[in-house]
């Protein structure tokens, strides 16, 4: 990767962040959903004692963190379509900027957008006496997984946006994908209690690996795979998404 590529990527991410700083209400509103999951769903489920020997909230908090990353990122494509409708994308594409840098820059900003959610969920989890590992290396590890996951799902979303091109179709597909990705993962229940077919699906779902890594680093739970596997799956799948996204990005204006 050349310096030039990194610099352009950063320019895009930097300006996306400035937009968030101008109006942080979006971030606060985004925090409502994970809060409800933890405070209501989590509290009720914890009373069912379905985790023998474990605390359900410990199990669920990293899942909810990953879930909020998924929900924020999977609708990122709507921004891409909105920018296309406004003509902003046209102007980006007319600059001498590599399409991969444009796509990665936008994906990175989706990751940065999720950082406040991470802070809020950590604080909430601490208040709910979740057993959190405060070792800075673990926190950085979770952060890296969060950014990688956001890159992965936001670019996946961008790819769909480039293919469907209209907001209406995109919203339909976005809704269609979110729940299957979420339910076919280890976010709110462990893989070993899943029926066989769902186990298979959860193994090809990158969200599972993101949660597996986050759970190990955030609460010290044993990993289902290994941290190396988790990071490798996320890194490779997000790199693949960025390459496909970069190749398709110009199609959004056609």
């Amino acid at each position: 990767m050349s310096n030039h590529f990194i610099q352009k990527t950063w320019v895009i991410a930097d300006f996306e962040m400035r937009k968030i700083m101008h109006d942080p209400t979006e971030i606060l509103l985004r925090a409502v959903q994970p809060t409800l999951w933890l405070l209501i769903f989590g509290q009720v489920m914890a009373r069912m004692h379905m985790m023998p020997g474990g605390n359900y909230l410990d199990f669920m908090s990293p899942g909810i963190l990953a879930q909020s990353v998924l929900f924020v990122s999977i609708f990122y494509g709507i921004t891409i379509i909105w920018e296309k409708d406004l003509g902003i994308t046209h102007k980006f594409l007319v600059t001498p900027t590599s399409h991969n840098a444009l796509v990665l820059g936008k994906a990175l900003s989706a990751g940065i957008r999720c950082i406040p959610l991470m802070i809020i969920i950590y604080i909430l989890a601490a208040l709910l006496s979740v057993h959190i590992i405060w070792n800075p290396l673990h926190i950085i590890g979770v952060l890296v997984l969060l950014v990688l996951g956001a890159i992965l799902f936001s670019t996946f979303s961008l790819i769909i946006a480039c293919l469907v091109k209209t907001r209406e179709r995109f919203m339909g597909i976005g809704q269609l994908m979110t729940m299957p990705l979420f339910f076919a993962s280890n976010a709110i229940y462990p893989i070993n209690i899943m029926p066989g077919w769902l186990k298979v699906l959860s193994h090809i779902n990158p969200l599972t690996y993101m949660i597996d890594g986050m759970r190990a680093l955030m609460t010290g739970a044993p990993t289902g795979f290994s941290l190396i596997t988790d990071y490798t799956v996320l890194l490779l799948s997000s790199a693949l998404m960025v390459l496909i996204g970069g190749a398709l990005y110009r199609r959004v204006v056609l």
Partner: protein
Amino acid sequence: MSIIETKKLTRVFNEYAAVNGLDFNIEARETFALLGTNGAGKSTVIKMLTTLLPPTSGEAYIGGFHLVKESEKIRRIIGYVPQMLSVDGSMTAIENLMLFAKLYDIPSKECKPRVMELLDFMGLTADAKKPVRTYSGGMTRKLEIAQSILHRPSVLFLDEPTVGLDPVARKAVWDHIIQLREQYKTTILLTTHLMDEADGLCNRIAFMSHGKLVASGTPQELKDSIHKEGSTLEDVFIHYTADLPPQETASTERSDIHNVSKPTAL
């Protein structure tokens, strides 16, 4: 050598030739207008020449660079203002300009002075720190033009630059286009539906109809060409583009109408 040269430039959408075998040249420092009915193919020409849309066949050169093989080099010498008002409303004018200054690889030391220079040039300095969503249509358009000339392009593409603006704002945009042409010696290709805009701003005009060029020349040549006493550009427009068979009156872009061959004035 002409700064823009197209040879049989063609773009087909689902078997419909939106642009069909276009041949024209634009010389450096000309202001050239592309006129025609809605769906005539003007925007498709602009999208191809700005490297957004690959041509189906034919060739074009901008500043001597091949449109497809050297698109990256072309992007460094052209500026583009799309038809839609396309700035990011959540950012300030300075931020909108700084973003593009950086995307155009302007050295970081030079970014700020150049942004300030162009804000001043467009008369936007007083509102430079306001979010652009508070701007009027005219101010937004001026900001967009500033954004498109940050890297001092030699060719500027303006796709209906004054669409939706009130007469005062329109006049202001025209004045800025004239000033910018003088000051930065830019070649301009614009599309418009306003005949006085084409007449007043451009030294050469081409008419498109159904993806083909049907007439071109200076405004005066075109007015003379229809042999009518006291003819205006509007008469010329109607003369060259309005003789449609009845089923072709729909004005949707890229309608499924096939090209009719007709005598050209070229």
